[in-house]
């Protein structure tokens, strides 16, 4: 990623071996073949420091991650930055590093946020070991992929 200028990124974050935590990656995989090649689709572990390095200041970024807020499984959360403050405790954080909520807070503090960001959270049900998505999460993955496709088409 050495090209200059504003880019459009879609980042799916998560761990496909921890059940519904793989929701973000599933969205990225769906979109990889469906979006124009000008959009850069990234599958990411969600590890904070390197996630922040995947965008630049003039990029337009969409991030999808699994969420755990207590809402029904498959619920779709959507936040836009810089407009909205992020509520606490929706996105999980790994004890070894930090999660997407922390990444955004640190990026704000360090002036390392991209030009604009849309963050989707897909409410998960089961984060146990194993590669599977709950049925409600499967449906939400398809819905979020659709919404991102439409949103990116509307963008100039």
């Amino acid at each position, binding site marked *: 990623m050495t090209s200059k200028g504003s880019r459009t990124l879609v980042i799916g974050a998560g761990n496909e071996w921890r059940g519904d935590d793989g929701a973000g990656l599933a969205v990225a995989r769906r979109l990889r073949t469906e979006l124009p090649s000008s959009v850069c689709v990234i599958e990411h*572990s969600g*590890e904070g*420091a*390197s996630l*922040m*390095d995947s965008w630049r200041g003039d990029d337009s970024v969409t991030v999808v991650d699994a969420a755990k807020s207590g809402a029904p499984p498959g619920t779709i959360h959507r936040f836009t930055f810089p407009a909205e403050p992020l509520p606490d405790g929706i996105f999980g954080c*790994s*004890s*070894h*590093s*930090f999660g997407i909520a*922390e990444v955004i*807070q*640190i990026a704000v*503090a*360090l*002036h390392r946020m991209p030009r604009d960001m849309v963050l989707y959270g897909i409410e998960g049900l089961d984060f146990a070991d194993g590669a599977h998505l709950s049925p409600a999460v499967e449906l939400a993955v398809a819905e979020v992929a659709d919404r991102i496709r439409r949103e990116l088409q509307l963008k100039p």
Partner: protein
Amino acid sequence: MKSRTIKVDYLARVEGEGALLVKIKGQQVSEVKLQIFEPPRFFEAFLRGRKYSEAPDITARICGICPVAYQMSACHAIEDAFGVAIPASIRALRRLLYCGEWIESHALHIYMLHAPDFLGYESAIHMAKDHPADVQRGLRLKKTGNAIVNVLGGREIHPINGRVGGFYKIPSKQELSGLVEELKWASDAAAETVRWVATFPFPDFERDYEFVALRHPDEYPFNEGRLVSNRGLDIAVRDYEQHFAEEHVAHSNALHSALKERGAYFVGPLARYNLNFDRLSPTAQEAALAAGLGKLCRNPFQGIIVRAVETLYACEEALRIITELEIPEKPFVNVEPRVGTGYGCTEAPRGILYHRYRFDDKGIIADVRIIPPTSQNLKTIEADLMHLVPANIEMQKDRLQWRCEAAVRNYDPCISCATHFLKLQYKYE
């Protein structure tokens, strides 16, 4: 008599899930428990019946922050069992991989987990607002470590390129040279880190610990050496279990290790430093002394300075290895399984990590023992709190709690690593 209880239900900024309970009666501490409720993971049990070649990859999964340490201890133990000798060039590359892990792990702990304790912030996120340049430096340092692990290990987290006998694939000279510029920056940044953390306010706290670390005839220890202490321990790695024992304590899913003769001991950066100061590079030694550390440091809070000194050492050592390296002709040496037992101990970022494997003639694992650094420090952490609390008994409760939490984080405990050894014991009340 006035009673107080300090209770931290979820310890923040440590790896894994644990809680802290300190009960105080009057001026005395009646109870200290570092409660580990991270669930046990039974790695030793499910390694049985597996082939020797799987052990480095399986054990690397024990920890996301020190997978290299698990791979290295596993490889050395297995090579010990099969009588495999590793050529100098492969050994140097293993050292380089280990440098990457130390840089990555130490930068994370110094900047993101421990510095907020000294500067009075709840987390690195809060600290970033007031200290953006420092946090940026920490993140970039961590990234430099990640880059080394990526080039040599095949990926940043849970590297897959290490194997018994060497590596699956050796990176090209160009790939390794690509790390040089960033490592030069990282050496300066690590020196700056030493100066930065040296300005922190440190509690006046010292204890007469028994420090245990590897010691090598001419290197600061990563992969090899004898196990030594400041109280006369000087043993081969294979004799570890004759001198150390693990015990189960009711309040912890992690076993507690002790020296059979003398009890609690201390492993990790401070132990390595105190037992191997003379093996550090001149630059690292100078940086340590300029930061106000003596050649011997007994204040665990100053472990953050030692971590910074070790980060500097690891950056320099990585540069040295890359510059002097001759790329091995073959990425690994052949391994012939045989019946036997092998022992390995390497210096994980948090201290010595011991592995022992027993094999049948096909190289199938019959029995395993893994003892991570955190379970070796647990007794010492609890003892620190037993001393720290009475010495600060006049402090307001929230300040005392803060101090206690910082004291736990002095050891950078990796609770996830420490919970593999539980003999299950449920207590119903």
